[in-house]
């Protein structure tokens, strides 16, 4: 029994087992639940890093459930896979790394943050299940399995968003909205799966991609999948759930919700690039994605400027930053059929967009955690009621400055690195788009200067006399994120070359994706 072959499943199965154990453990000892959660997620993080090293050196990994060997995709003479499999390439593991880091830090942060809550065991159980759902969405190579994990992630996030619904009405309301959105979108995904199944009689993504004909029905399936996944990712025409859900969830959960919506974004890219790829009318679909991105950027930032609630403001910024990713990858898709333009600036644009996913998860997670720290000590999210907090919470102030500078795209932080890639490549595609992106960046900076001024600066306020620095585990989580942000900002070339570029290439090259499952073609 060679455990190193089983790493892909262990990454998911260990948090899942821990999630089942947590309710039983809490009968014996309530405090042990948090420690068990953190332990399970740290094991998962370690295994993800090991798997990432393996994938980036050896190549894509396949794990077939229930077969006689983990890499046996096609048993004896079949032309199509019959079992569920995990298919992990550079792009999947890129997203997996984000999820692992974010979930581990979320659990660490929760150790202190959930002291005020009762029913902590349910909280940790749901947190683990949410992690499992996100990991599954990113790793799976089977389209129905994707639907199942989408449901796990959305039901767990609904339960966590409405976790404070016992005492307050707003979390329950936000949870209801998100539940309606996510169940409708999951059912539309299931309808699209039915269309694929009826046409080709396979459920494996790579197998569908190898036979797809782009007929009328495939167009309808794309027309169902794209808006629905964009809605789950929080792009603008369908963004109404995002501010509510992000602002009402507990702060560590908001950070994980960012990762969950990015998993939907990943699924959108997977559908467009790996499932359809060149058979699409790439220019049209690319422009649709670019327009989604532009609307998200602009409307997100304009709505953010007028907000009074700190987490709501950050949620609108999350929408606006999603626009950058859609813009970068959309430009790459628009020139996919044109090898020269793709080589010239398409790949760079996609690198910018994909790199921005990771950067966004890090700095937006940090900002939500600082907002959570402010809420933890002051008990309010209203910017007008805060002030002078820099006197009491030194570390939190520093972390907030780092996060705000990163989101506004100031050097030497990571936001600058990915935004620069997007600006320079999009400028070659269409100068106007690049200028809009820069304007949005300036507006973002203005908005965060306002937040910094009203929350941290100013005289000491009498009602915050008791406020002191947050507990150690919360500081630890924020410090790790800040270190990652600064590291990525100082050495962007290293990350782009080793992590982002393989991810982009694995998206673009469809034959490599199908070949992993179906053999050399």
């Amino acid at each position, binding site marked *: 029994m060679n455990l190193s072959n089983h790493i892909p499943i262990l990454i998911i199965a260990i948090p899942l087992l821990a999630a089942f154990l947590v309710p039983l453990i809490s009968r014996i000892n309530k405090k042990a639940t948090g420690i068990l959660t953190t332990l399970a997620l740290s094991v998962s993080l370690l295994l993800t890093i090991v798997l990432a090293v393996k994938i980036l050196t050896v190549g894509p990994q396949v794990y077939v459930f229930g077969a006689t060997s983990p890499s046996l995709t096609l048993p004896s003479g079949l032309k199509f896979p*019959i079992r569920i499999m995990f298919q992990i390439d550079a792009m999947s593991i890129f997203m997996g790394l984000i999820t692992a880091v974010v979930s581990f830090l979320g659990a660490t942060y929760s150790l202190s943050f959930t002291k005020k809550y009762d029913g902590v065991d349910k909280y940790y159980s749901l947190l683990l299940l949410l992690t499992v759902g996100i990991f599954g969405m990113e790793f799976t190579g089977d389209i129905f399995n994707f639907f*199942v*994990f989408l449901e796990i992630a959305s039901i767990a996030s609904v339960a966590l968003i409405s976790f404070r619904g016992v005492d307050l009405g707003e979390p329950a309301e936000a949870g209801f909205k998100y539940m309606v959105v996510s169940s409708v979108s999951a059912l539309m995904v299931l309808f699209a799966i039915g269309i694929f199944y009826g046409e080709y009689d396979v459920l494996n993504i790579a197998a569908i991609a190898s036979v797809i004909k782009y007929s009328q029905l495939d167009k309808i399936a794309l027309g169902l999948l794209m808006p629905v996944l964009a809605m789950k990712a929080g792009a603008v025409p369908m963004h109404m759930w995002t501010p509510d859900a992000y602002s009402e969830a507990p702060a560590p959960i908001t950070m994980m919700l960012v990762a969950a919506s990015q998993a939907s974004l990943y699924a959108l890219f997977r559908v467009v690039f790996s499932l359809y790829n060149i058979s699409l009318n790439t220019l049209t679909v690319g422009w649709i994605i670019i327009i989604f991105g532009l609307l998200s950027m602009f409307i997100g930032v304009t709505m953010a400027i007028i907000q009074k609630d700190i987490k709501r403001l950050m949620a609108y910024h999350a929408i606006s930053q999603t626009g950058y990713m859609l813009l970068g990858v959309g430009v790459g898709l628009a020139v996919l059929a044109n090898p020269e333009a793709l080589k010239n600036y398409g790949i760079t644009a996609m690198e910018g967009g994909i790199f921005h996913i990771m950067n966004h998860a890090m700095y937006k997670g940090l900002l939500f955690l600082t907002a959570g720290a402010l809420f933890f000590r002051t008990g309010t999210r209203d910017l007008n009621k805060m002030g002078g907090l820099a006197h009491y919470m030194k570390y939190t102030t520093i972390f907030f400055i780092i996060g705000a500078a990163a989101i506004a795209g100031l050097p030497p932080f990571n936001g600058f690195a990915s935004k620069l890639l997007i600006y320079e490549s999009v400028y070659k595609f269409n100068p106007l788009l690049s200028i809009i992106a820069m304007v949005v960046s300036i507006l973002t900076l203005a908005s965060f200067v306002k937040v910094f001024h009203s929350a941290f600066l100013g005289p000491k306020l009498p009602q915050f006399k008791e406020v002191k620095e947050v507990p150690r585990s919360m500081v630890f989580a924020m410090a790790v994120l800040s270190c990652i942000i600064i590291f990525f900002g100082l050495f962007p070339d290293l990350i782009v070359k080793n992590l982002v570029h393989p991810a982009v290439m694995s998206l673009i090259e469809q034959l490599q994706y199908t070949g992993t499952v179906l053999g050399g073609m």
Partner: protein
Amino acid sequence: MKKIIFGLAFIIFFSFLIVSAINMRTFGEPTISEMDDYFIENAQNETGANNVVTSIVFDYRGFDTLGEATVLFTAVVGVVALFRGVKK
């Protein structure tokens, strides 16, 4: 105004569905059924279960079933967490 936008979206969506219904293959005559024929022929041999659907649910697609049980567990934990303040 809102109603008009909703109505338009609804009409577009409904026409999508109608077009897909018209284009679907004829009811009762699957054109391609390679994967399912494989299951019907080999499930009994490979898993030993007489019920082909059960052998798919628990063997060929067993991981889906784990996910499905997890979804139910998640919903239970969510419902219990939502009503946790409510005493008997």
